[in-house]
């Protein structure tokens, strides 16, 4: 296996990276596979000490690191959890990641956390609320963060914006960047019946700083299908096709292979990242 030649603690390169999972800590250090970067779930490294944090610190000397959070509950109407934010700030200071990201979602209300990425209504009220909180977090961290579009399984009535317009306005209002999850675009488009190409066309080119790729599963409800964002399998052909469109529109953007359930051997993730690199290079050649 080729080994990484990347320089750590720098910006995230416009290559494919892989999600960092604990089962791969040792293999990554031993094999140093040639992937562009690693993305760690922030909350997995909120520890005060211990082996996981040591692994992340060691890997940060080898690979550029992105921190991807799932617990800030940015869209919630509860106050921002300042203790959570302080832990994130401490981790950011310690690891010096190339990118920091969170989700366009909420997960807590009334002091209870549901620990899932719950959908927001695409209304001006929700947009203003989220933009204020994103700006607040950016101030607290002293840097721009990226906000990721989530897979959703329901839409609220009374929407005032399409999802892509909501994201574009969020970036404009808060100054955040966007993390475009192409699998999530595909999953939500199938679940709600919108055109994923219209979604991509509605996202400002300059706002996207990272792309996510992942696998999903298909559940049936009578005659209807619901796609579930499980991160449990390979990127499907349809999502690769959408990624091809995305890399033409959002050029030189790093992409990440996410795999969180039924996690395969490291080599499988590295091969998937290589495939993402080949897709990007092929589209770039076509564009040239």
């Amino acid at each position, binding site marked *: 296996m080729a080994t990484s030649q990347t320089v750590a603690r720098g910006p995230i390169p416009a290559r494919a990276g892989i999600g960092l999972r604990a089962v791969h800590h040792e293999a990554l250090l031993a094999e140093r596979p040639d992937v562009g970067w690693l993305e760690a779930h922030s909350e997995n490294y909120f520890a005060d000490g*211990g082996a996981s944090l040591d692994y992340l610190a060691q890997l940060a000397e080898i690979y550029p690191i992105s921190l991807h959070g799932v617990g800030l509950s940015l869209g919630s109407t509860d106050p921002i959890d300042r203790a959570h934010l302080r832990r994130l700030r401490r981790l950011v200071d310690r690891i010096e990641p190339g990118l920091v990201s969170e989700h366009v979602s909420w997960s807590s*209300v009334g002091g209870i956390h549901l620990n899932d990425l719950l959908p927001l209504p695409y209304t001006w009220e929700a947009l203003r609320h989220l933009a204020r909180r994103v700006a607040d977090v950016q101030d607290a961290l002293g840097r721009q963060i990226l906000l990721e579009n989530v897979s959703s399984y329901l839409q609220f009535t009374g929407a005032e914006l399409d999802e892509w317009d909501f994201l574009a306005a969020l970036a404009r209002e808060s100054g955040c960047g966007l993390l475009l999850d192409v699998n999530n675009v595909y999953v939500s488009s199938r679940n709600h019946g919108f055109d994923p190409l219209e979604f991509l066309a509605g996202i400002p080119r300059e706002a996207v700083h990272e792309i996510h790729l992942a696998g999903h599963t298909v559940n049936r409800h009578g005659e209807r299908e619901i796609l579930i964002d499980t991160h449990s399998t390979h990127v499907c052909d349809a999502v690769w096709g959408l990624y091809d469109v995305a890399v033409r529109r959002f050029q030189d953007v790093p992409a990440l292979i996410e795999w969180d359930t039924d996690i395969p051997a490291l080599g499988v993730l590295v091969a998937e990242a290589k495939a993402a690199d080949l897709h990007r290079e092929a589209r770039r050649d076509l564009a040239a």
Partner: protein
Amino acid sequence: MTSLRDLQLAFATAVRTGDAAPLVGRVVTNGIPAERRVGIYANNVRENFLGTLEATFPVLARLGGRDWLRSVGTAYLRDCPSRTGNLHSVGERFACHLGAALGDTRYAYFQDVARLEWAYQQVLVAREPDAFDRDALARLPPARHGAVVFAMNPAAALIASVYPLLAIWQANRPECVADAGPEIPLDAGASRLLVLRRRDHVELRELPAGDFAFLSSIAQHRPLATAAEHALQADPDLDLPQALIRLVQLEIVTGWRLPDSNPLPASPSPEFRS
């Protein structure tokens, strides 16, 4: 129009109860009932929570079986929902929940197993100890020794139980082969366990009564005089200076301070050298 706050409260209620009635009229059904759509989120919430519990309490999962853990975990999710955005914290009140749920049944010892597994997880992620300043301690006049507040290694925890926890834990670790050993009698003896992280692994060891009482006081930030009194009550024959030296050498006691801010004396004193 419903405010964002009201919508989130209704959504959370629907997810937690499985009843989508609070969201009637607020969800685009598009051929799939709102209840079904909300159910996907309810399932995600439950699976995220239960998956974390299974990872946090593998010995309990083996003792009670995965189905039992998921069943009691579902009740725990209902009664003690998560209060943080960090899933790693959701097991914090599980032992207490088991204590209430299992009461005086033959499975009451599960509560203590849960306490041990939670301590194990906390030790794994605790901070490294500060350097022990032996020279400064050596300079302390003997008259002030009784006021010294020692610190236990942050990556250490103490667990006392009327059950043979160490044997139970050793026989039911995830890496043990199934049905490997004889059944452990629950009346085989009480436990006084130290859970200690050393570099990348966690040790469990039984402590003598005097050491355990001494460390328990230290863990409660009691001054040396009080800790010594408790230790000697537990074991009148304990050689306290030797015990302290041993605990420092083993990096179980890793720091000290005085309750006031008086400067440390310059003249050395040998009492606590190890």
